[in-house]
């Protein structure tokens, strides 16, 4: 039980530790808001990744999907579309990319690691071709509200994140799609033998992950106020790390929204804390890497005890 709560306790310990080590800066509203803003994008991608990983898959292309979504959304705005339309286009583009991943995985029956490694390259390349490698700048000023604005005293992205987290949680725990995701991830053969439309639901999971990533792309674009074709490089690993720290298993069938959020915030706080305490960014990377290994080894220990 203690080990199941370990990620949660780690997050609390980190929070308390940082409050003591750097009371003035860490607990300030500006700093906490900036932690939320910085982690929101990874959090959104990690929510989608949670679904994918629970269903026994993996999506290495989310970083590229993020860039594609952000670029197409901002290009639409630059061409005079309203902001809402731009956001919709970004999310829709992400959805299409996710659908493509799911379609290729289920139709060609290729390991999703390979498929998304391929689409990572294809999507990034396509984004660069569409933009000719140049960022989009002509964005309406009001668009910055998405990433930088406040609603009722807290960052607007926090509201977006909470709504998405609740939605994904409901999908996972209370809908047929979520149940099938667990079943497929836990034992794809048993799911197929039970007559579950495995291909359809696998594709749906990737499409939802793509949508959330597209939304993340729009938030990223809003924070930078540019549509960057090179945005999101390496984000896929952070999203996967968040899921895994939060108790998700790459073997499928395990994971939760709460766990993933905790995982993403642990990484966010580690980065933020290192900044505040003046720890070099080089060392930061090593600390986060070590955290991933520690978290997963504790989780494996817990499971091994359970099995016997």
């Amino acid at each position: 039980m203690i080990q199941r709560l370990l990620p949660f306790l780690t997050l609390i310990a980190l929070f308390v530790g940082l409050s003591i080590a750097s009371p003035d800066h860490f607990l300030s509203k500006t700093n906490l808001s900036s932690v939320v803003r910085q982690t929101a994008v990874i959090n959104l991608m990690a929510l989608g990744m949670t679904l994918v990983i629970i269903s026994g898959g993996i999506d290495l292309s989310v970083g590229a999907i993020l860039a594609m979504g952000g670029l197409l959304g901002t290009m639409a705005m630059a061409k005079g579309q309203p902001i809402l339309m731009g956001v919709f286009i970004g999310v829709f583009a992400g959805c299409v990319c996710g659908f493509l991943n799911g379609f290729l995985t289920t139709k060609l029956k290729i390991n999703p690691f390979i498929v998304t490694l391929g689409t990572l390259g294809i999507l990034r390349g396509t984004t660069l071709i569409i933009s000719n490698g140049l960022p989009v700048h002509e964005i309406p000023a009001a668009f910055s509200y998405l990433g930088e604005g406040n609603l009722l005293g807290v960052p607007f992205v926090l509201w977006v994140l909470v709504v998405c987290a609740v939605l994904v949680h409901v999908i996972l725990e209370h809908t047929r799609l979520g149940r099938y995701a667990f079943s497929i991830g836990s034992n794809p053969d048993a799911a197929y033998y039970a007559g579950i439309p495995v291909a359809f639901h696998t594709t749906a999971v990737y499409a939802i992950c793509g949508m959330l990533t597209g939304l993340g792309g729009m938030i990223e674009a809003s924070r930078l106020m540019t549509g960057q074709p090179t945005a999101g490089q390496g984000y896929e690993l952070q999203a996967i790390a968040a899921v895994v720290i939060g108790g998700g298993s790459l073997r499928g069938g395990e994971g939760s929204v709460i766990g993933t959020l905790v995982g993403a915030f642990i990484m966010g706080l580690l980065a933020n804390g290192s900044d505040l305490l003046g720890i070099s960014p080089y060392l930061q990377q090593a600390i986060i890497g070590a955290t991933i290994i520690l978290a997963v080894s504790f989780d494996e220990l817990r499971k091994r005890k359970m099995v016997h």
Partner: protein
Amino acid sequence: MLLQLTAIQKRFGGVVALKNGNLTVAPGEVHLLLGENGAGKSTLMKIVAGMHQPDGGDMLWKGQKVSFSKPADASAVGIAMVHQESLLAPHLSVAENIFLGREERLPFGWVNRGKMLDAARKLIEEHHFPLHADWRVEKLSPAGKQLVEICRAIAHGSSLLIFDEPTSSLSESETKEVFRIVRTLRDRQMGVIYITHRLEELRTVGDRVTILRDGETVHNCGLNEITNERIIQHMVGRELGAMYQRSSLLPGEELLRVQGLTRKPLLHDISLTVRAGEIVGLAGLVGAGRTETCRALFGLDEPDSGAVHVAGKAVTVRSPREAVTEGIALIPEDRQKTGLATALPIGYNLTIADINKVSRMGFLLDHDKERSLAGDYAKKLRIKCESPRQLAGRLSGGNQQKVVIAKWLVRGARVFLFDEPTRGIDVGAKVEVYEVMDELARSGAGILMVSSELPELLQVADRILVMRQGRITGELPGRTTQEEIMKLATLHDGGALLAEEGTE
């Protein structure tokens, strides 16, 4: 004495797997280790093989106190284990597998393939094994793979060989071959520990018997001093009624009609019918096409030709999904691999085939309803569990099988294809599975039952169809004899060890 275990204890977390494990094995003795699933047999053997470390007790090997911290320690002193699931490298050859980890080495890490191949050939010839040293292991049948593991043990000069349910996946003729080999090992003064669930094969191999129950050794004696009934009593700790014998029902309407089902080269012109209330047995050797028949009927393999009628309606089944829609259910041979999601709760496994039963508005799950539904079925099928939230993998084999069956009851299937329904299940629990099948038949289901255990077919089936080399070679009444079945199953069949291109 070769091996002497005294008061061995082992706990996993809070669960006590072994309280008091005692076992003594002499050289040149085949020692049967019996007990229900969960009695601690496998744990005890894994301790002997160095895969687990005991929490208490003494282990003497040839009179010396020993403790193994890893499997290599046990194999170094001469203890080898033939596992139920093969632990071979499928892409390597027979010879490479025999010498895996102990290759004939040349300087700079080169491997002397020629010498290895020769040594393997000599070994295979010496024992008259139907193997070739250069065959790739993945092409071998389960029986062939076991032979390779046995070769490996002999090549390493082992003096104690542990068989963990060696015959559970083998046909009758292959089983005989394993027994022959066990006897030759005994004659060479090796000690053999043999775990089995099949009571009818005890007498053909064993010398002594040790019975475990609930982690304790409850009995130990020579095999000729004890009757099978006493053995069962020791295993289950209570008196079992007379041998199970199902009484037939008056069959109702025709539920399944198969005509001319062909899938080359494994199935040729399969025709059969199953009526409501009927249990039709499907007998035959491994590779005869029994599992393939089930697979084709369930939409897992597409047949070349043939017609299938379910309850009088012509159906085309191209996937399990379509089979399920037509009311066909498959209880697969390997329930851990294809029947259950062992890491998910029982409740999830019960509703997986018909989630609509516990959904609102077609997509929102009703957890309360699911729990009560799961509770109802657990009670109905007497599934022993703590709650519907318990993970399916934590259940015993018999209870897992009941969950697989219950899944199809929830769905309301009417045609049931049982493929080896009691494989790896305790004696006591087997009868419970038969009872569930009988209740299914009484409630109007039609059952096609594949089994390699002939006594089981004779106990349960109303009619028995016998298959050989992809064809049905005859139909026998339920009260026939094993000899009649074997006659139809083995004509012109040598029991080849190279698996056909099938999954059986």
